[in-house]
Each structure stands twice: as structure tokens, then as C-alpha cells.
């Protein structure tokens, strides 16, 4: 099902588009935006509508502001579900010891570890220390860990990035004493 407001479609069909307006005037087509368009009844439009189908007979209509009258809160709630169900993004929960609640981040947004670290640091207002393969994270009480597909808790950074993204189920920023036992080599 083609998406309404697909800009390429509209550009191609503009020449045959049926609309009310003086020839030569341009209409902005802003999906769900603050477009000021009015749609007054038009005889030719009615004829086409009375066949019951609009997909084949006329070009897809640009979105009219506030129509259909569904509150944006409701629209957004359902839209979130649509995106997530289409497999976009890889959201994992992130918890930090001592912080009152979890956050969720989309791993597909990052390309490598430093980006991820920076984002986590900003989110939870801490800093992560220096990473080295042999000794793990030094210089900070906080250590980023993750739970992988097998249920094991691993140190973030030990495996190549792609492997991390595909196997990470959730993140946990551990504090202090619990960190022992992780990051001790391969």
C-alpha cells in the first residue's frame, strides 16, 4: 500500500492532480504538518469518489491538517508500535546501579563503541574510565556490562562491535565491587 504523501509520487502525478485552485498556484504538501489547505467540494472529485475507490482513479491525496480527527497523542502511540514491529531499531534496556529507573536506547544508532559510551555517559551523567583489552575499564567506579544471548554478563568492548550489537540483550552499568570477575582477559 503506497504511503500517502510520498513526495516522488506527488511530483509525478502533479500534472493530472485534481484540486481546487488557480492554475499556476503552488500547493505545499506537508504530511500532517501545518498545511493550510482547504478542500472545498468539487464536482469532479465527487464523481471519482462515488466509484468507491480512490487508489486507482485519482492520485493519493496529500494530508489535510487535523484530518481525520484523531488526536496526535493517539496517532503517536500507535505509530510507535508500527515502527517497532517493522523491526526498525534495536532497542535495549539500560540500567545503572543506583539510578532509579531504566532507559532504553537504540543500538543501531551507533557505529562503534566510543559513540555508545559517550551516549551512556551523557544519559547517566558518569564517566567510564579507560578501556584496555587486558585490564578492562580503569579509572572509574562504573563499568558498562551487557547480557548476551546466552544469558552471560560480559564487559562492553570485549567483542567486535557487530557481534556486540547482534548479541546484546540489555545493558547494565555496574558499580564498584560487583565488577570483579569481569574483564579478566579473554
Amino acid at each position: 500500500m503506497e504511503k500517502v504523501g510520498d513526495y516522488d509520487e506527488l511530483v509525478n502525478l502533479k500534472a493530472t492532480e485534481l484540486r481546487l485552485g488557480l492554475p499556476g498556484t503552488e500547493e505545499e504538501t506537508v504530511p500532517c504538518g501545518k498545511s493550510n489547505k482547504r478542500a472545498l467540494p468539487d464536482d469532479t472529485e465527487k464523481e471519482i469518489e462515488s466509484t468507491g475507490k480512490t487508489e486507482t482513479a485519482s492520485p493519493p491525496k496529500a494530508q489535510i491538517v487535523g484530518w481525520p480527527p484523531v488526536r496526535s497523542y493517539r496517532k503517536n502511540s500507535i505509530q510507535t508500535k508500527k515502527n517497532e514491529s517493522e523491526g526498525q531499531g534495536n532497542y535495549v534496556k539500560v540500567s545503572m546501579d543506583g539510578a532509579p529507573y531504566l532507559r532504553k536506547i537504540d543500538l543501531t544508532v551507533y557505529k562503534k563503541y566510543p559513540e555508545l559510551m559517550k551516549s551512556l555517559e551523557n544519559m547517566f551523567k558518569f564517566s567510564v574510565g579507560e578501556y584496555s583489552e587486558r585490564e578492562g575499564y580503569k579509572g572509574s567506579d562504573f563499568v558498562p556490562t551487557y547480557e548476551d544471548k546466552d544469558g552471560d554478563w560480559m564487559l562492553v568492548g570485549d567483542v567486535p562491535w557487530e557481534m556486540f550489537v547482534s548479541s546484546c540483550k540489555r545493558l547494565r552499568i555496574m558499580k564498584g565491587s560487583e565488577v570483579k570477575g569481569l574483564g579478566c582477559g579473554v
Partner: protein
Amino acid sequence: MTEEDSSAKMSEDVKRYLKLDPRSAAASEPPPAAALANKSRNFKSFEPPCPDHVLENVLENVLQFLTSRCDRNAVSLVCKSWWRVESQTRFEVFIGNCYSLSPARLTHRFKRVRSLVLKGKPRFADFNLMPPNWGAQFAPWVVATAKAYPWLEKVHLKRMLVTDDDLALLADSFPGFKDLTLVCCEGFGTSGIAVVANKCRQLRVLDLLESEVTDDEVDWISCFPAGETHLESLSFDCVESPINFKALEGLVVRSPFLKKLRTNRFVSLEELHRLMVRAPQLTSLGTGSFSPDNVPQGAQEPDYAAAFRACKSISCLSGFRELTPEYLPAISPVCANLTSLNFSYANISPDMLKPIIRNCHNIRVFWALDSICDEGLQAVAATCKELRELRVFPFDPREDSEGPISGVGLQAISEGCRKLESILYFCQRMTNGAVTAMSENCPQLTVFRLCIMGRHRPDHVTGKPMDDGFGAIVKNCKKLTRLAVSGLLTDEAFSYIGEYGKLIRTLSVAFAGNSDKALRYVLEGCPKLQKLEIRDSPFGDAGLRSGMHRYCNMRFVWLSSCALSRGCCRDVAHALPNVVVEVFGSDDDYDDTVIVDYVETMYLYRSLDGPRKDAPKFVTIL
């Protein structure tokens, strides 16, 4: 007002004129001078009241029993004395349009307000038809009531702009505050909520419904004070930020009176289970995401059905924000007791719905997405004989999306649910036959709102306009008070509305009608019309003028993207001094110096205190 309260009041009769209502949590302060001035007796010396005042005395005690605002309005018109007494005994004030009067007028007339209901923006603001920052600020109201009613207990706001500062002032000013309900509001965040949670120690109700709440990253749940709370209802399903679950669990544990809990989508199914186990007394539950955090590992999964079974009192279920379908059957144990079920955020197919709904014999309110299809509606019709209210929202809210429901579903509902009173139905295609069938099968209808999403769509079987269907509704549904029309409609539909819609109070029109005659039919024919909202219809100056005799008796009229001229709007403004006429566009790019004759949006409403002083630049008050 309960009978016990009234008898307590009667025995306190004498003391009442010296201090406030003794039942309020606030300290006693002498009543404002204006109230005392009416009474010439001096109770301290125990002189008997003079005869004139005996009547007022008696009247006060009688009026305690009047709660309906229509009755009270009628009482206040009898004579000056009755007006005075009614003013002193009105504890709940309802203001349908916050700009119809100033806060000062409220506090001047009513001296003992305990509960305030305020509505701000008109409904079409929900659909981006109003520029932001138009108004409806709560601020002047909270400032005025903070001074005048320190005993205020309840505030209920709809479509108002509420800031964190307003909430802080509220929390600081009303020590006995019990009930805050914010519906479709915006302008505040979790920090404002945190202050209310923390400072309102008598809080019973904190309901945030369909409001926009900014995530200030404040752990507001932890801000409720330690110890047992008075909470009876906590709704935060619209708060789009994570919460501290541990704190929520602790809060629920120490809230023995909690009956209604509506969590947001950040509460997982496992977490919901924990809450239910700790609060089996719940009557209303908003289930959050209804999706587990973790992939279950065998026997470790909690027994969700058992948790529902244990909550024997649940009669209202909502949430299901990120439903994992396999878990839906867990709600089966409560289905037989359910009176209200809201599936409108869940993409539920007919096959998912049928096993659930077939047990819901007592359901009175059912909200769903059109993903349930006509087949799902038929299942509802087969079982839910007590249904009073149905709302079906579109999963894909666009004009040319697939429409899984139609007149088939509507007709089925009309045949199965004869007690139906209220319906909101979004669809892509409809027939006059189905609408007429509903008008004949459901004589109890008071609210009929049909939204055929494609503009100007006729009956998809006959190709005729939808006039006959809506005509049948107004003719046959003699109790109809609210109507929203759609589809291809000619002036004839409006002539029916004017002829038969004698009880209609609210009318919503979009992309309909042929000429000003349509508007005239309605304005001349519907004596009870209070709220008229019209968009994108060919109504112009003649139509607007035809309602001049009505506007003082209406709450508001909204006309946008119609054919009005500025001159005509100005004429209306000049002719009706008690009516405020606002004119604005849908964006604020308008050049101040250029006066455009065409009016994009006209919003008029009656007002006792003249035009408002807080209108933004893009609003012109004529």
C-alpha cells in the same frame, strides 16, 4: 454532599457563620466580609435570628441537596436573596470556557468553592487547528483561587495550559487538596507532578489523562511522602517517560485505599504482575505495556492469569500499549465482571478478540481499534448486550487507508446492543442503510459521532449522499444531544438536523454542506445548541448572520476554513457586546500590517468580562 454531612452542617448552623465549613482540612478563617454583611445577627450573643433571615437559613439547608448545576442556575434566578444563598452554598463550580469570565468574578460571587472544573481550548485544538500559545492558561486561576479558597480540594482541568509553577503554587496553597485531574493538558512536566505528589498530603486522586507531560527526568514516584497514603486513583498512562518501578511498588504497598491504577507503557508485564499481587483490591487497572521484559525461561514465568483471578474487583481494564498477543488470555478470569474495556491502543485481530469478548457479558464501555474488523464487532454484538458506549478508532488514521470496518459492523452492533447510548465510529465507507438501522435499533442514543475518513464520501453502495442516514438519526433518536457528521452531505442533511435535532447541544461538522442555508437551518432550528464546531465547509457571512440571535446563549462557535469575511465577523462583534469574536490563522506568519479580508478561523464565545487580555499577537479580537 452526603446526608451525614448535611446533618452535621445543620447542627453547626450557628458556628457556620463565624468560620468556614468545619469539615475542611484547612484552618478556620472568618468568612469574607461580603458574606457577613448579609447577616445582621450576632451569634456570639446568642440572639435569635430575625425572621427575614430564617428563610435564608432554611434555604441554605435545603440547597445543600442540590448538586446539579442546572438546578442551581435556575435557583439563582428566582430573586436576589436566592441568588445570594445559592452563591454561598455552591461548592462545585463548573466553567465550560475559561474565557467566559475572569477569575475575579468567580471569587467574588462564590465564596466557598471546594471543587473547580475548568475547560480551556475548544476541541478542534486537538487536531492542530489552533496555533500553539493561543491561551487557556491555568495561571491566573490558580493565583486567584489560592487567595480565595485555601480549602480547595479538587481541580479538574481540560485542554488548559498548566505550568510546573502553577502546580507548585497549587501544592503550596491548598493544604487539604485531594483531587487533581488533568485531561488533554500540556505545559508541565514530571517536576510539576513531583511537587504535587510531595506536598499534597491529603491527595486521593492524581489522574493525568491524555496530557502531554515533559520528561524532566525527575523521579516523581519517589516524591510521594513515606508512610500510608490516601491515594485512591493514580493514572499516568500518558506520561511518556520511564518510572522508578521499585518506588511505584512501594507506593502501591502503602496505599491501602488505591482502587484505580493506570500505569504507562514503561511498566512491563512482570512489573504489572508484582503490582497486582500487592493490590488485589483494585477496581480499575491500566495495564501498561502488557509485554514481558524478558523472554520467559520455562517455569519461571509468573502466573498472570492467577494474578487476574486474585483481583476479584477489577471492573475496568485499559492499557495494552505494546501488547504481546500470547498473554492476552491472562485477563480471562476478570472478563465476566468487566464493565469497561479499552483495547484502543492494541492491534487486536478478530481472532484475538473473540475468545475474550465472548465472556464479557457485563461490558458497558468498549473502546477498540478497527483492527478488530466487522467480524470483531459482530462478536461484540453477540455478547455485549449491556453495551452503552462504543468507540472504534482507526489503526491507520489516514484518509485512504484500508478500512477494515464498515456499515456491516455498525449494523451488527445496532442489532445486538439495543441499549447503546454513545458511539464514536471511524471508518472508510458507510451506507445510509446501516446508519438508519442504528437509528431504529438504538433509540437510547444520546451521542452519535460517525467519522467517514475520506472526505465527501457518499453511500458506497448507492452512491447517494449520507443525508438520509443522518436524517434518520436525528429523527429517530429523540434523546440525541451530541452529533458529529461526515461523508458527502448536502444542505438537506442540515435541514433534517434543524427540524428534528431539538435536544442537540454539540454539533461537529467537517467538509459538508452546499451553502449558507445549511448553517441557517441549524442555527434557527436547534434551540439547545451550545457548541458548534465547523471546518472546511462552504458557509459564509449569510450563514453567520443567521445566528446572531443565538450566540449569547451558546458556549462557543468555531468556524475554520469556511467562507467568512472579516467585515462580517466585525459586524457580529459590534452587534453583540457580550460575545467575544476571535479571528486567527493556522500559523503565525501573518504580517501584522496586512489585513486580510478572508478569515481562516473564527472562534466566538460569550463572555461576561469582555475580551481577554492575554491574547497572543496572531489573534485578533474584533
